[in-house]
């Protein structure tokens, strides 16, 4: 009996040592916009499955896609669709790149609740944030100077706003840059003549979202594409995902992963 216990004990010890060696590992790399979703999802997933090893890193969408093409990552995060040239390179390298939509990036334009304006066009918002328009009276409001609140240039929300609204033009130099969506919302809530933009998850009664080209930002209008300040966020794999990559992607696209995306200010698909 002693021997059996001893063998069992040794066996378990060996298994315990060996488990981490055999634990499956995946590398997720790419977009800084998708990074918070990937990081949070990996953190929660690894708490549920301590044997899983998910390494998440940024670098940008192009870096992630280049990595999935050359095989140095398992999942590529991207805030833009893969380019034709990248698909051709992938095909030449024998890669079968598969897209997975993991969330939508929807951005609401917000004003102080006392501002009488409730509807704007994308062009007006662009003019305000590029400095062409500096008084609310120029867009049908009161004769007050506009205070523009923006996210800092390193944020994914800023990157999306630049692309979807500003046509990649520069933000006016006197814009107040904030380090988070919450900071933008708070500043707008405290500044009567302010205009800002935040992820949909950060809307509250303290700020007023305006319609853009006649469409109010909401989860549904972003998902149906009727609200135009939105874009899909991707994770790319080489072929159909397998093993841990599949399990992780299922988790991200599942109810729990999508709830995390909502919490982070993105638009979940569920």
């Amino acid at each position, binding site marked *: 009996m002693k021997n059996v216990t001893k063998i069992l004990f040794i066996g378990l010890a060996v298994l315990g040592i060996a488990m981490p060696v055999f634990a499956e590992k995946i590398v997720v790399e790419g977009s800084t916009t998708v990074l918070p979703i990937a990081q949070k999802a990996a953190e929660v997933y690894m708490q549920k499955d301590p044997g899983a090893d998910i390494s998440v890193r940024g*670098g940008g969408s192009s870096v992630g896609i280049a990595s999935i093409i050359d095989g140095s990552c398992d999942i590529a995060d991207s805030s833009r669709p893969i380019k034709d040239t990248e698909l051709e390179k992938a095909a030449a*390298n024998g890669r079968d*790149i598969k*897209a997975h939509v993991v969330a939508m990036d929807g951005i609401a334009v917000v004003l102080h609740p006392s501002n009488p304006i409730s509807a704007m066009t994308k062009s007006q918002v662009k003019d305000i944030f590029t400095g062409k328009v500096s008084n609310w009276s120029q867009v049908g409001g009161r004769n007050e100077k506009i205070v523009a609140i923006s996210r800092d240039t390193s944020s994914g929300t800023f990157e999306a706003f630049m692309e979807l609204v500003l046509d990649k033009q520069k933000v006016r130099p006197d814009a107040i840059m904030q380090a988070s969506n919450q900071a933008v919302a708070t500043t707008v809530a405290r500044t009567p003549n302010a205009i800002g933009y935040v992820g949909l998850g950060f809307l509250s009664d303290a700020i007023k979202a305006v319609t853009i080209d006649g469409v109010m930002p909401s989860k549904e209008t972003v998902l*149906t594409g009727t609200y135009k300040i939105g874009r*899909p966020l991707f994770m790319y794999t080489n072929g159909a995902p397998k093993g841990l990559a599949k399990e992780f992607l299922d988790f991200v696209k599942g109810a729990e992963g999508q709830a995390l995306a909502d919490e982070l200010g993105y638009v979940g698909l*569920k």
Partner: protein
Amino acid sequence: MKKIVMMAFIALLGLGVMAPQAKAGEVDLLVQKLVEKGILTPGEGATLITETKEEVKKQLASGKSESVPSWVQNVKLKGDFRFRYQYDRHTTTKNENRARIRARVGVQAKVNDKMKVGVGIATGKSSDPRSTNITLGQDGIISGTSTSDSNPGSFKNIILDYAYGSYVVNNNMTLTVGKFSNPLWRVTDLLWDSDMNPEGFNVSLTHKFSSSMDLFMNNLLFVLDENTSKEEQKYPLLTAIQPGFSYKINDIYGLKGAVTGYFFSSVVDRYKFKGQSTNTLINTNYYKYNYNSINPSMELSIKEPLGGIVPSAKIFGEGVLNVSEDVSAIGGFAAGVSFGASKVENKGDWQAKLIYAKLSRDAWMDIFPDSDRYSGKTNMKSYEAIFSYGLGKNTSLDFDYYYSQSLSKTANSSSGPAGYKPSHMVQVDWNLKF
């Protein structure tokens, strides 16, 4: 029930019942209807539409589309046209005003997933591998040297610009054979005219060292002449080995660098190549020196410098050192800065560039450098200023000014007075690409 409908729908897509382009448009409408009827959630709809579009793109890119003929999917056509006004002012020869054109057309065809063939033709003269320009009205008319040179409205020559085959061995290795665009990474045209397409083979290697560091290596064998050398009865060859790296320091700064080793064989004592101008010769016609050289290059790129006034800037430089035996004047370098868009591709894009270049007589073989800079000679120093402005998508207006002079003072001769023979050149280009 919902799931069954959805699965059937996805299955239809998977079977490729619909042609890819039609598929994308029709899927949008079908999905919208399914969302409206509550069969799909908006999230499922958005996912289906986006992922289907991505799948269609992939099929087109990989040449698997059923609606477009495979030869169309496998062949890419590209080319450009340039109209140039050029003014040259020399101290020893007559000033020139010339209108010049350049046209290039090329195709790249995918043979299979691993192999490609490229063939390109261009205007130019087969005797001048450093220029694809055609001067309108012929040079003789403009300079007025002799009416017998005139040939108004003459047909212009079309030459084979490149023809190559390439084989993607794996993700990190590509082999190219034939006549192809210069595979070596260069920060200026100090050593190589951009029109010069080497003939031989190249092996390019890449390796992703980390998420911020890429390594590369080019290995080029350039067959310089089919005729064997006078003494050794060997083909003159140029072998170039270029290891390099590209390092993303952070979101603002990037650094790229390489060191190229050039090894010439069967050049010393060989009869001069066509285009030879300033390299030292013996017995009037034979190369005295070899041109084995080391060529380090570096480029620092900066995003939105000067408080974001300009979109990007680059500081770059390269040096060349002839390490062959018994060479006296052995060095050269070029350094410069550029501001503006990294590429002038769209309306309103602009880029300004300044370059200083200096190349001693035998630092490098004089048949290769930029033919616009002091006629492509060595033994010169030169200042260059370039400004490019995007007129629209794929079209730009470029201004290029060179001030160049010889490094050594020449004596009085029948071709002009003593001096450093400075020259000015102004080029105004209208570029159109497709």
